[in-house]
């Protein structure tokens, strides 16, 4: 039985009050926690007001890119003017290594998402919402479907919700296991039944998305955070975190920690505090720390010194040349062969590249072979330079951000552990 965590957030300050699954996930449980209260009022308030409030809340997308949600929503045209339906698509294709937050939302607190979808659809004037769930989350998607069924029965979904005249239907769609389908336009392609490959942008989904209609795609966590933001006073949300980084966030902490955990915590919390409070510290103590990947496998790693200083929010991590990403904190202590970990991550990206555009298709595999060789000390010091240059030939030259995400961790490794590469290369040379 793990020790009870010291709560930084009070229960009523949390969006996900059942994230650890200690309570009832079903409609009854969710209602007891205050869910669906005030829904009717939200569905009768002018939807433009909602968008305004989302903008004020400065909620930034929780899927990785951190784009302001209110702004994204304001891009959606009025269906009355376009003559086309609008769609809200929820991206539940959680595939970033280290990230497992959406999974717990889906299985322990699915109604937060359902309620978010209802309000989200209303706010965007969409009558239909899709939730694209990662194929491996089969059980979770069943749980979600059960929650949706409950909501239909209770009159929270379907035609004329709670007598407000608002219609919303939600469909769950299971993916087939490709990481790239978490990229929003690839997700749309996949949802349309095509091969999951990112689309060229522009046009952006807000103008030409699912089936060619205006579409907004948001992460599970983002959508689930909408109802409490709209229901509560603005301060309820902005009391946490720094300006432009407000609110709370689920952090998935894994790796060399005493207690790997998924936890909702305030934004802008110092990384060290996050690890020590919730994950009960690094195995072997902070001094035993080697490096931390702060936001899922595609964010560049931080070394021990940086990890001790950084604040966990979008802007704080940007200062250190990395990013909040999905806030999946992967901790590596001195027992970990970092180069091997990073080579494995490269292998992951090689495997998941969709192969559509040249730099990614040809480059990510090349980077992987170089990583594999160099991390074993096979190669030359000059090749380290080449590897660095190669990542620059790939980064920023592709259709989607996948290749950037595949290159950043490599660049991060070269920045933090160049001497380790060199040591291994020299050791091999000496043997030979």
């Amino acid at each position, binding site marked *: 039985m793990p020790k009870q965590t010291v709560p930084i957030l009070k229960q009523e300050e949390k969006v996900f009050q059942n994230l650890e699954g200690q309570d009832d996930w079903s409609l009854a449980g969710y209602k007891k926690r205050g869910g669906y209260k005030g829904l009717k009022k939200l569905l009768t308030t002018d939807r433009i007001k909602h968008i305004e409030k989302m903008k004020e809340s400065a909620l930034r997308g929780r899927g990785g890119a951190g784009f302001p949600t209110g702004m994204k929503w304001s891009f959606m045209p009025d269906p009355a003017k376009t003559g086309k339906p609008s769609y809200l698509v929820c991206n539940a294709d959680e595939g970033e290594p280290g990230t497992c937050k959406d999974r717990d939302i889906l299985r322990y607190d699915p109604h937060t998402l359902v309620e978010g979808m209802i309000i989200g659809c209303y706010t965007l004037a969409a009558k239909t919402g899709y939730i694209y769930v990662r194929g491996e989350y089969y059980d979770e998607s069943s749980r979600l479907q059960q929650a949706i069924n409950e909501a239909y029965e209770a009159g929270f979904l379907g035609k004329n919700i709670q007598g407000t005249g608002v219609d919303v239907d939600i469909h769950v769609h299971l993916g087939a296991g490709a990481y790239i389908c978490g990229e929003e336009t690839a997700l749309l392609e996949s949802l349309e039944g095509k091969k999951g490959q990112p689309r060229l942008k522009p046009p952006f989904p807000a103008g030409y998305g699912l089936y060619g209609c205006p579409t907004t795609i948001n992460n599970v966590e983002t959508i689930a955070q909408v109802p409490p933001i709209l229901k509560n006073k603005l301060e309820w949300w902005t009391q946490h975190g720094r300006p432009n980084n407000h609110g709370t966030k689920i952090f998935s902490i894994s790796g060399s920690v005493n207690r790997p955990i998924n936890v909702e915590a305030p934004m802008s919390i110092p990384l060290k505090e996050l690890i020590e409070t919730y994950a009960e510290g690094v195995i072997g103590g902070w001094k035993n720390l080697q490096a931390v990947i702060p936001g899922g496998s595609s964010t560049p790693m931080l070394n021990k010194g940086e990890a001790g200083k950084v604040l966990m929010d979008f802007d704080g991590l940007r200062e250190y040349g990395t990013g909040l990403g999905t806030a999946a904190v992967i901790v590596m202590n001195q027992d970990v062969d970092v180069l091997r970990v990073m080579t494995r991550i490269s292998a992951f990206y090689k495997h998941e590249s969709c192969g559509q555009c040249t730099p990614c298709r040809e480059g990510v595999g090349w980077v992987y072979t170089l990583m594999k060789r160099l991390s074993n000390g096979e190669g030359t010091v000059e090749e380290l330079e080449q590897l660095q240059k190669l990542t620059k030939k790939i980064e920023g*030259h592709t259709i989607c951000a996948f290749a950037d995400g595949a290159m950043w961790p490599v660049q991060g490794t070269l920045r933090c552990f160049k001497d380790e590469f060199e040591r291994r290369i020299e050791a091999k040379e000496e043997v030979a």
Partner: protein
Amino acid sequence: MTNLTLTIISKQGEVEVIVPQGATVMDAIKAAEQQVPHFCYHKRLSIAGNCRMCLVEVEGAPKPVASCHWPANDGMRVNLDSETTINARKGTMELLLANHPLDCPICDQGGECELQDQAVAFGSDRSQFQEMKRAVDDKEIGAKIKTVMTRCIHCMRCVRFATEIAGVEEFGATGRGVDTQVGTYVEEALQSELAGNMIDLCPVGALTNKPYAFTARPWELQHTDSIDVMDGVGTHIRVDHRAGKVMRIVPRECDAINEEWMSDTARFSWDALSTNRLTTPMVRKNGKLTACGWPEAFKKIEQSLKKVGRDKIAGLAGDLHCAEDYYAFNAFMKETLKTDNVDARGDGACVDSTNHAAYIMHTPLADIEKADAVLLIGTNPRHEAPLLNVRLRCLVQSGIPIAMVGEEVDLTYKYKLLGDNPQVLEDIANSKNSFGKILQKAEKPLIILGSNVLTRPDAKAVLFSAASLAEGIGAVTENWRGFNVLQRMAGRVAALDMAVHPVAGGLETKGILKALSENKLDVLFQYGDIEVPCEMLQSTATKIYIGIHLTEQAQTADVMLPAAAYTEKNGLWTNIEGRVQEAKAAVQPPLQAKEDWKIFRALSAELGKPLPFNNQAQLRQAIVDICAIYNEPNMLVQPEWERPGKAGKMKDTPFTLPVTVENYYQTNEILRASNTMVACQAEILEKRKVEEAA
């Protein structure tokens, strides 16, 4: 529409260009007469943006943009010469070449390879790639295309062509990332009749021309502009030849006709030009065809004509001749031999030269896209004129309604089947059929009547009713001509223009065949193969065969005269639109073979009544005298409207199609002589068998 002004910065300095709203950065660069390297972009395909070769720096943008799809903006400054641009190109090129085998010396694309050219122009002279290269299994996709898939750069042009233009979803990419492979999903022969275009589209040597493999290098070839004759479209082609031998045939660009596509029958049948040819005159001696010289053959003909009444002589012409040849044959029969028993309508079509409007397409091919409703009658454009079908498909894709009266066939797009016999036309005309209303409402309705309809016993009545329908729905107005008769043979329009049919009560094809079967004729001049079963040409008459191949029909002749194929003569060919186009001779006729009109001219002199022209110029003048449009090749002249056909009773027998999937690759004597085409037909039949068994 507003215009956008952009600045293009290149080595030559800064240039301001103005492009319309909606243009891409690449359009702007082209407007500035600058080059931008690219692979996946192709002006007739959708934009894929996947090769990333066209990256350029737009000032102020955080990263280089793919110019092929990036929208141009007012005030944009595009730098083609900046470090960002140059590095992006070099980087992409290095990555493209990383896994490319660089086997140019043994690659057929060498010398005309976009990757080769652009690597020289925009790449770097060395690579840092030290790893093992990827190798990909080649795919066996039939007799037309050879694959070396290790060379593929995944530009997806082939895939986009197959899906978007050819309309067959046969090609696609399987696998992901570096393991992506392009090919037919299940390894099998391509079924498309346009597959060869993928060879031209493939920027590298991944898809190459299979029968051409390792036979020539592009720089050894001489080029001659010509016109294809495998169907009636009049595709612009380039005949590539070396040392007097045709090595391959490729399309030329022509927006008005074939855009830049070409049917496979046109592309892959060139081997027939040197297979099983008639190369020397022959006469039958002791029951056996024996080679001889021209004088001896002519002697024999002269003898056989001695004391033969002119109504005992007849002439039949096939469908693969140009206007000059038809004219000369016709004149030879009618003026030298004084017989009116001449016909070039081997299928017994009911139209003749008196009404030009009755046997051509009135809508120019390029105007097809303007139509807003289409009715097909007894035709399968996919097999009768594949490139017309490409245009129709494009139209349907844009949402234009299309319906068919006739046999149900796979046209690569969906259409509404209204019925299979002519009586449906009446329902349409009086709007009993719902499609009638659609046609009524359409501003530019299009009717396409297959040429096989003209061979029905009730042909005139059907033609009349279709034409009346066209008039009724507004398909024949001052601004819009939507009535079309689709000929499927390259020579037919010219044959009719030259009036190669009885004009003074002589026997028509049917009559001639009947007379033959009753042994009532003494001499038959057969000019090329006729589309009737060989037995129907069997008789006691002396048969003189003038043609290019030793076909089954040629083998029953008593005298054979070797003529020139379409690549071996300068000739005027008239396409389905009635457009006269000149094909140039690429090579000499083989050995003793001669240009056709010269044969008739010489023979007429031998018989003492020389035809009144001594050279091609005089011959062309004679043609112009009877048909003025031949004075201006390439021009389209809209024919006077005269309602064709004759009112009468239409039967309810279904329309039939002469060309089917089962014989598409074998529909004329050249195709039948081509090994490649025979192989293609066999593949189709094989696939059918498998499908039926399943």
